[in-house]
């Protein structure tokens, strides 16, 4: 609608009022053309009654037939009433236009902000870009942002140049955090809050709530004579809400990346550990022994360990152990313990199991006691020529021997675990291994596994399972026990590492 249309509409209101007050006919003319006539359907009024020039630059004239309209005063009263209605309408329209422009400005500001800041993944990049865009959109003399996160140095950014001291920015954050709302210090306006800037400049401080606390402030500064307007404050508020979510998202992203990095590192650690725990079984050993071992850590890495070694053509050594605790600390000590056992065997190839454990305890006691941890360990040495199994047990359970045609029994520890006392007093014990005899060494992740109703798997079930699986291969025995424990636990998550080593004598062969 152009200006002429709007004027025509306003005049129509006046004409309606005149008609209602008694005028017979009113026509609006532009130059020599009738635009409209009231009442509707009446012929245009030509030269009759009164003619009013409308001084609008559009050449409009109102012609009126007085009819029963009493006098000009009444006509003017009606005109005033109609114009008042028009003015009210125009004012309402202005208010709507103003609101629409402000909303549009805020939406466009958000769009610009999102475009500029969306690819920022570091606070050191995001904050300067945020404050630069804030400065561009609101156009204050200067803008700043100050952010403090737990255990990190404060982050600060300013635009167009560093104008504000760190102390003043910090004061601004403290003040808005205390007030728990945005604060405005306009020139000449009294405020009860202490002003962070010690001069006459105007300051608008918008708090940013991050992680449920006010941890940042966006500050806008104007020269002494220039107050912040209501649209400025609204726009700054919109920017602050956007900044909050941008910073929240960035922190979340940062945490996700850190978690992913840790996850990757843990996966690598797991690979390394599994590699350490999967020594290829010496070919010579498999001639006389059926050997199988496996480990399932409760977390990505675990503290359980096992090993199978051949020191000479007549001997196979098997090791199983469990470092207290779980996860990375246990895994690190597990690796060290396994390394110490291998190292001892390499320097003392003739040492028996008890001597190995005593030497390892001496070597690692300091490392374990410093961190309040310990490791159980069972070492067994099979000598093919004599078909003898010599073993020593430092606090490890369960170890089950099934042979002699007797029921399976536990080979109990006769010494404390490694790392508890400065010296380990474990002793060697001997067994004659006959064809089909079975040794099952596991970690407590088996017997202490819990069911959904809180019952423990226990040693008795393990002994029964070993008895019933006596004719199976080493791998089948391990799988039977592992499967039984898993079925028993149901949906309960594995709370401890589970490691099992099964050794079974093959018929009659030597190494």
């Amino acid at each position, binding site marked *: 609608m152009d200006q002429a249309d709007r004027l025509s509409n306003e005049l129509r209101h006046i004409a309606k009022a005149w008609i209602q007050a008694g005028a017979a006919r009113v026509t609006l003319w532009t130059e020599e053309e009738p635009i409209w006539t009231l009442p509707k359907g009446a012929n245009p009024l030509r030269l009759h009654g009164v003619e009013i020039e409308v001084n609008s630059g559009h050449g409009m004239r109102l012609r009126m037939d007085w009819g029963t309209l009493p006098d000009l005063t009444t006509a003017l009263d009606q005109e005033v009433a109609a114009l008042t209605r028009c003015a009210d309408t125009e004012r309402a329209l202005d208010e709507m*236009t103003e609101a629409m*422009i402000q909303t*549009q*400005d805020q939406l466009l500001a958000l769009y610009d902000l999102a475009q500029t800041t969306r690819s920022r993944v570091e606070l050191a990049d995001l904050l300067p870009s945020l404050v630069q865009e804030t400065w561009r959109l609101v156009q204050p003399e200067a803008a700043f942002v100050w952010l403090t996160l737990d255990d990190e140095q404060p982050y600060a950014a300013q635009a167009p140049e560093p104008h504000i001291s760190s102390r003043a920015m910090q004061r601004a954050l403290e003040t808005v955090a205390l007030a728990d709302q945005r604060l405005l210090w306009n020139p000449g306006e009294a405020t009860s809050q202490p002003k962070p800037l010690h001069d006459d400049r105007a300051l608008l401080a918008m708090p940013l709530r991050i992680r449920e606390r006010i941890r940042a402030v966006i500050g806008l500064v104007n020269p002494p004579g220039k107050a912040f307007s209501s649209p400025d404050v609204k726009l700054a508020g919109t920017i602050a809400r956007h900044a909050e979510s941008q910073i929240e998202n960035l922190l979340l992203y940062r945490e996700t990346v850190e978690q992913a990095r840790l996850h990757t590192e843990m996966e690598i650690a797991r690979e390394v550990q599994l590699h350490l725990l999967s020594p290829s079984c010496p070919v010579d050993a498999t001639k006389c022994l059926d050997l199988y071992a496996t480990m399932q850590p409760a977390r990505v890495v675990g503290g359980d360990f096992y090993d199978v070694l051949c020191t000479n053509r007549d001997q196979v050594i098997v090791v199983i152990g469990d470092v207290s605790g779980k996860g990375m600390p246990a895994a690190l000590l597990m690796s060290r313990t396994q390394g110490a056992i291998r190292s001892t065997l390499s320097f003392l190839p003739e040492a028996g199991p008890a001597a190995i454990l005593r030497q390892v305890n001496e070597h690692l006691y300091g490392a374990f006691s410093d961190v309040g941890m310990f490791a159980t360990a069972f070492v067994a040495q099979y000598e093919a020529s004599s078909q003898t199994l010599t073993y020593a047990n430092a606090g490890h359970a369960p170890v089950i021997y099934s042979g002699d045609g007797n029921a399976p029994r536990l080979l109990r520890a006769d010494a404390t675990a490694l790392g508890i006392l400065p010296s380990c007093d474990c002793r060697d014990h001997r067994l004659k291994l006959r064809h089909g005899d079975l040794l099952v060494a596991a970690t407590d992740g088996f017997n202490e596994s819990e069911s959904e109703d809180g019952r423990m798997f226990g040693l008795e079930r393990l002994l029964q399972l070993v008895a019933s699986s006596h004719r199976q291969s080493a791998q089948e025995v391990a799988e039977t026990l592992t499967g039984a424990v898993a079925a028993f636990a149901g949906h309960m998550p594995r709370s401890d590492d589970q490691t099992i080593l099964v050794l079974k004598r093959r018929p009659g062969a030597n190494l």
Partner: protein
Amino acid sequence: MTKGDSMQTILVVEDHHVMQRVLGYTLTRADYDIAIAENGVQALEYLQEHDCDLVIADVAMPEMDGLTLLKELRAHDQWHHLPVIMLTASVDDSYRVSADALGVSAFLNKPTSSRDLLRTVARVLADGRTG
């Protein structure tokens, strides 16, 4: 409308009535004198009889579009240097290239914020005065 001595007149050429009102309201609030034309033809008719400091014209309009209007203005000595800001909602860069070739003063994308509009108008008018 009355033109004060210090007020600068801006002719807004825009066929969309809401945009007319938004532009008119924003510029009037910033103390500019506003005239409105619905298309290029009306704009030329207005300019025949009135002085004007700046034209803000939409690109897409019936009867005569903004680019044609710009071409007409540049073809007349009287309006050859009249600053013109073009408004467009189109992402087609060919408009911009053509308008640049015809000596447009500035380009604004629709919708534009009131701050960007006023900033651009002030800059173009200042350039017009100094140039």
